[in-house]
């Protein structure tokens, strides 16, 4: 059987040349990749070196309490396309969604990688772990997800927590969280954990995180919440193409009204863009096709922790301190999200008086609507 052979570990360079590309093509790919990751000239050399020398990175991808939207989003990636990721970049040795083997042969494939690549494999986790009732609410192969996570995490090089389930518990952790659905960072200590929240995360963001780890052998720079800054550094509001309407005080009042047809700001019909950190406004979805706001629906804030319990979807995000694109999650955090007075003060400094009046009126309406439920 093939799994008994010793790895010969072809490098990306080998793969590229074998696929009929020239060294020049390879270098231009590295340059593009470096630019994509926001690196300067010396970074290009680093990418080139890494892609010429490294074998395919072993990856174990576990599924717990989830809906597989993360795996589905991952296969939507356009750059790189997932076939190339699977054949050339990583060795996806365990994935319940895609792997050929089932049953004990599947378990064996995971064990093989855990032993052969001890301390070298990346552990990806899709889904939360239910800790209630000794973990019986999620069992695979007769083991609880708690046990499987513990075993697989022990010798992983790093962990990627895919999506909001693994990063913050997502929908099953919404009140009253009946199964005690728990995100990964609360269960695994002493390992680097990259949180890639979103329900799901954007496909190219997922592939981008993988490419970063593969290329540099390091994890990308994370913010104080553990998310890659490259993708979660700005609020959707700050990169929204409808932002100008917000600044001008032009809002959709009701779905499908005249203002909706004109593409005005969706803040008053519940858009959570002002409190959501994600790349939707810049990278957009499905290879730049659209994103929720472009298609007329407000952002629901799916990459934020506890977004299911942070107000209703069609209720205005009444409190959000700190305006301006210079704000990031860390500085906003310091303003203490949720403190109305501080929020309103930061707001007043940074916006003009006319808009401020409008926004304050909206906030009052928002607070009133909060009381409805």
């Amino acid at each position: 059987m093939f799994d008994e052979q010793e790895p010969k570990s072809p490098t990306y360079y080998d793969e590229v040349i074998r696929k009929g590309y020239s060294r020049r093509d390879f270098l231009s790919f590295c340059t593009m990749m470096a630019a994509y990751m926001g690196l300067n000239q010396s970074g290009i050399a680093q990418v080139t070196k890494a892609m010429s020398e490294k074998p395919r990175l072993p990856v174990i991808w576990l599924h717990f309490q989830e809906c597989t939207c993360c795996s589905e989003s991952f296969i939507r990636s356009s750059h790189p396309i997932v076939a190339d990721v699977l054949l050339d970049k990583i060795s996806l040795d365990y994935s319940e969604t895609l792997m050929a083997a089932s049953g004990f042969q599947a378990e064996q494939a995971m064990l093989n990688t855990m032993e052969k690549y001890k301390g070298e494999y990346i552990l990806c986790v899709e889904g939360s772990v239910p800790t209630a009732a000794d973990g019986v609410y999620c069992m695979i192969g007769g083991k609880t997800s708690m046990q499987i996570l513990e075993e697989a995490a022990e010798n992983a090089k790093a962990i990627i927590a895919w999506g909001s389930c693994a990063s913050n518990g997502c929908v099953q952790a919404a009140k009253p969280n009946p199964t005690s659905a728990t995100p990964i960072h609360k269960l695994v200590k002493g390992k680097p954990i990259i949180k890639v929240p979103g329900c799901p995360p954007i496909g190219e963001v997922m592939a981008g995180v993988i490419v970063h780890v593969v290329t540099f052998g390091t994890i990308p720079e994370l913010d104080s919440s553990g998310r890659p800054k490259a993708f979660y550094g700005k609020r959707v509001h700050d990169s929204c193409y409808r932002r100008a309407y917000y600044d001008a005080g032009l809002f959709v009042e009701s779905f499908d009204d005249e203002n909706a047809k004109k593409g005005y700001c969706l803040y008053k019909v519940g858009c959570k863009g002002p409190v959501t950190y994600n790349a939707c406004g810049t990278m957009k979805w499905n290879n730049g096709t659209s994103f929720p706001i472009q298609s007329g629906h407000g952002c629901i804030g799916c990459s934020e922790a506890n977004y299911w319990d942070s107000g209703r979807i069609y209720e205005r995000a009444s409190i959000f301190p700190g305006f301006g694109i210079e704000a990031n999650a860390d500085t906003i955090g310091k303003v203490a999200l949720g403190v109305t007075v501080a929020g309103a003060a930061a707001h007043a400094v940074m916006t003009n008086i006319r808009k401020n009046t409008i926004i304050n009126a909206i906030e009052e309406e928002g607070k009133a609507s909060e009381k409805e439920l």
Partner: protein
Amino acid sequence: MSQRIVVDPITRIEGHLRVEADIENGKIKDAYSSGTMVRLLEEILKGRDPRDAWAFVGRVCGVCTSTHSLVSVRAVEDALGIVVPPNAELVRNLMFATLYMHDHVVHFYHLHAMDWVDVVNALKADPKKTSELAQSISPWPKSSPGYFSDLQKRIKKFVDSGQLGIFANGYWGHPAYKLPAEVNLIGLAHYLEALEWQKEIVKIQAIFGGKNPHPNYLVGGMACAVGLDEMSGINAERLAYVKQLLDDGKRFIEQVYIPDLMAVASFYKDWGSIGGGLGNYLVYGDLPTNGFGDPKGFKFPAGAILNKDISKIHEVDLRKDEEVQEFVTNSWYSYEGGKDVGLHPWKGESKINYTGPKPPFKNLNTEEPYSYLKTPRWKGHAMEVGPLSRMLVGYASGRPEFKEVVDKALKDLGVPVTALFSTLGRTAARGLESVLVAEWALEFYNQLIANIKNGDTRMAEQSKFDPSTWEKKSIGVGYGEAPRGALAHWINIEDQKIANYQLVVPTTWNASPRDAKGQRSAYEAALLDTPVADPNQPVELLRTIHSFDPCMACSVHLYDEEGKHLSRINVVGE
């Protein structure tokens, strides 16, 4: 003596499924299907804004993404008496069609193909012969000897690396694989092409719903306003984009999926008499052409077939207390009225009660409750739902388009109509309905264009969006056809909040444990008599299970931990 085998995890599905089977004389003598993960979403929905429900239940499943959101807004609209504008219905149909085209292709190539296609054997294929074969069955352009030769080299190098990734530990070389090397190579080539193609077709959902997976829906219509002369909104560029994607999608289905399906099926005709199972088929119907209030206008007609008797279609009524009922006899829940009673979803009651072995364990005790799935029944009958049920009900209803594709497939394969009641029939039905849906999608698109041309740009009915306009109490049912089969949500709204929300989901029908009478559900019934040549490599078992396209996260998500009655509503007026 029979031998008990355990397959857990069943991979290439959505979610967590375990099958235990008793093998005797090379055949499955008995089988037990168990769902092993639960999230209790219905409990989480209580007290929330009904207009938000689509987002919560959308997260039931990211594979059949959008289908729960669609059925959810229908349930709320039913409760509130909202009729959505025709354009919204058409956009929803287009998103539905997108999901089917995507999901069925991904199922065939990425979840099911490796049960039939021996990936490693593809290395032995002659690229020139492969090219000739490919060109003889399809005009699809990627079919030159050089194309197949390059692919083969790429795979050889991959295999030689020793890092087999997703192909590691497959049952390669198993005698049940019957395809010539050249067909295996075509299958592998299209595995990779389909992986690239699938990310394109879903862009239709991104255009109308903002993203995929998990696009946005809206109670009362859709949020994507039509603004022909605006930079935002649905304008000529967006519509042209949709048309392009629909045309490309239809071409892929007709020139890649269907020729491959027929080529593979022609080598596995024996599977036309294996895995038939229940012979009872249930369809709720979907794809309205005259508004959701007119089921006669559905492209997928509703109905039930019993005992493979396609001469009679039984009517189905989801609002009637005695039609759909759920049992917990062999599930890890309890009912106040005891383990053996059946309850309509509106009377839904349950206390989660895990009584299985303490993990880690080797075997379940299948003499006792053995699954987190409840067991739904229609008028007491175990029913199969899914593409085969839809094709059979359409066929039995005498709809010409169904008859045309089914009869052609039977004729091309040279098999009798009874071959439909099988593992192969299930897999073929999925492909055939993809052809229909791709065709219908163009009709929906043309109708949308015609409406806009005639000046109707309405996309959402918002007069009842404000909760203050609602009655104090209301109840509704939303239903439809998920890719995996009949799906319904029941909602109970009180004081502007969700008082109760119940889902009965396709895979719950198919994958559930036995009922109070000991009747098997579809998976367990279909596995009976399935041959298993090597109990350590039960590829045959996977074929039959995968033919249903399991979606476990959908099927398990229920109930109040405290065991309270979730609802006491019994009957809904028509």
